[in-house]
């Protein structure tokens, strides 16, 4: 089956429009993949809607950052990656990709709600979470900083002789492309020819700053050639386009063709954070092609292509809403970290007090 998809551009080498999602034309395989992507999109959306309510009700301390509008891109990437084998460094708006890559919803609610049982144990919050030993590093806030980290994880595997077939991926925003970290990291990955996929979710704004104040090229994908890496542009509101292009980029990286840059065009459908109403986004942007909601588009595509029925989708809504509810309820009843029982050491080694030889006591939570 050749799936129909919205127009997509590509930058050398070209990816034909309507290119199949996977390397084979097996309808079943595409069907499974697309349903799986959609599940993660929907789970993420429902979870984030809930986070937004919790924020507005004053139940979350600190910021809440949503991936609304970016789910098709993020979930496709997360689904194309293989948990336990690949690496994924999610960024601000990657709830859908995290879910697709296997992060349980409870990791999210625990981190937002400050549960001591979460992966960050109240030490860090919101989107600053991960499970580094499970292939998913915890982002620091500094934009671009995860690019070389993913490169390093892959580099380690090469040295250990277990790189073959693995991919490492990360997402950044249009704004993050202006950072030195993005540039140094991507260039280094290109020099080392690492199997890396970097997705730029160009949602047209970095906080309030429009693309026109962020870069001067026509399309960020034009950067790919300057790094000597593969480049793709894709309509990020179109699930079928994402599925086609992102899986192709992942496949090429996995095949050993070096880093691949995918620039996805979309619009952030929320404020920068939930404290922000995003009123600086002009109405034209909200009303134009990229202003459409990828979940609506995907719903339509799944139904039109006979990949899911309206009924099924409705039942997923119910099922995922329940999951979200449980994840929130559980995190809410869990204990907060206790400053008096907190281990206030930033070092895993106990060398300072006793003057002993290095005595590692590291234990991942």
């Amino acid at each position, binding site marked *: 089956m050749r799936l129909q998809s919205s127009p997509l551009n590509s930058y050398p080498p070209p990816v034909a429009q309507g290119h199949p999602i996977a390397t084979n034309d097996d309808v079943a395989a595409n069907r499974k993949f697309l349903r799986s992507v959609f599940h993660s999109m929907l789970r993420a959306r429902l979870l984030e809607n809930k986070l937004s309510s919790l924020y507005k009700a004053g139940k*979350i*301390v*600190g*910021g809440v950052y949503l991936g609304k509008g970016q789910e098709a891109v993020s979930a496709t990437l997360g689904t194309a990656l293989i948990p336990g084998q690949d690496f994924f460094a999610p960024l601000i708006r990657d709830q859908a990709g995290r879910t697709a890559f296997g992060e349980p919803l409870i990791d999210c609610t625990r981190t937002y709600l*400050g549960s001591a049982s979460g992966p*960050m144990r*109240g*030490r*860090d*919050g*919101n989107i*600053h979470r991960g499970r580094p030993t499970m292939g998913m590093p915890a982002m*620091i*806030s*500094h*934009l671009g900083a995860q690019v070389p980290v993913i490169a390093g994880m892959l580099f380690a595997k090469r040295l250990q002789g277990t790189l073959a077939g693995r991919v490492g991926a990360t997402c950044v925003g249009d*704004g*993050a492309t*202006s*950072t*030195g*970290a993005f540039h140094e990291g991507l260039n280094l990955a290109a020099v080392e020819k690492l199997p890396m996929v970097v997705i730029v979710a160009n949602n047209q704004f*970095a*906080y*309030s*700053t429009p693309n026109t*104040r*962020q*870069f001067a090229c026509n399309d960020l994908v034009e950067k790919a050639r300057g790094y000597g890496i593969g480049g793709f542009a894709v309509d990020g509101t179109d699930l079928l386009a994402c599925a086609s292009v992102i899986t192709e980029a992942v496949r090429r990286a996995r095949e050993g063709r070096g880093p691949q840059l995918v620039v996805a065009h979309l619009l952030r459908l929320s404020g920068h954070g939930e404290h922000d109403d995003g009123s*600086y986004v002009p109405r034209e942007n909200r009303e134009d092609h990229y202003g459409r909601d990828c979940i609506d588009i995907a719903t339509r595509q799944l139904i039109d292509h006979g990949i899911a029925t309206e009924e099924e989708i409705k039942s997923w809504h119910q099922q995922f809403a329940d999951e979200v509810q449980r994840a929130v309820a559980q995190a809410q009843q869990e204990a*907060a*970290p*206790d*400053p*008096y029982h*907190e281990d*206030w*050491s*930033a070092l895993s080694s106990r060398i300072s007090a006793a003057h002993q030889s290095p005595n590692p006591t590291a234990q991942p939570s």
Partner: protein
Amino acid sequence: MSLTYIDAIREAQETLLREDPRVFLYGQDIATFGGAFKATKGLAEAFPNRVFDSPISEDAMVGLAVGAAIEGMRPIVEMQFADFSSIAFNQIVNQAATHFYRTGVPIPITVRLPSGGTPGSGPFHSQSMEGIYAQYPGLVVLTPASVSDAYHMLIDAVALDDPVIFCEHKFLYRWLKAKSIQNDHLPIGQARIVRPGKHATVVAYSAMVHEAVRAAERLHEDGWEIEVVDLRSVKPLDMDTVLASVARTGRLLAVGEAFPWGGVTAEVVARTVSEGFHLLDAPPQRLNARDTPVPYHPKLWAAHRPTPESIQEALRKLLNF
């Protein structure tokens, strides 16, 4: 009418834009949006072509400011959070800070750092970097603790021919209010005694001044008179005021919100004992944040930084020595 600390910073920038054509503002989301903390709200409209949204390029933002300063401008660069100045570190400490000594040409830039912790901000939106920048020759590092100081010190910072790291405290932004901006103010380089006392001196700066005052108020109920010194500027350090206070009280506690190794409190204590050893009746003490990244959870955060309670406790120990 009342005015917050962030209002004062906004007002200062408005005054500067109005009165000095050499001033311009450069930073992320500071133009139409008015900045992440609204420190530049309305300024882009009021002063066309003087307030610019920058790309997310802290290193280049400061580099651009240095170049503009060479050509006679007085740029104010806003970092969205102090923590992100780590990206601009090289341009600040190696380009801006060394320039006058090397070339004889001063670099009058002001880098505004929204600093310090607030509940739920976590490791990367809470840092206090004054003790990092103060180590570098060629930088002036200011840490206003009052609404009036926020205003006047920013005006003074831009008037200085040297690069200034202007550490604003985010917790004070909306929490700290004043009726108006006072007209008289101290020059840069001079500390202020914000509360006179005779039994012990607390040297603090930025948000910790207010925590120290609270601790002093509570101890006052027990009959202790604690003198609180607001450093205002951590580089240069006004050791005259510190030593004069310690001469009166014989006891010193230095309080800072930054990490415990080195930093402002170490410098204050080390200089006090070196220059005023004989004035001391008890071992001078320090109270800093704990030696871990700033935690996200408000409960951990409250136990990570000095509080009126922990300052009080440290003072009681000092008074009972």
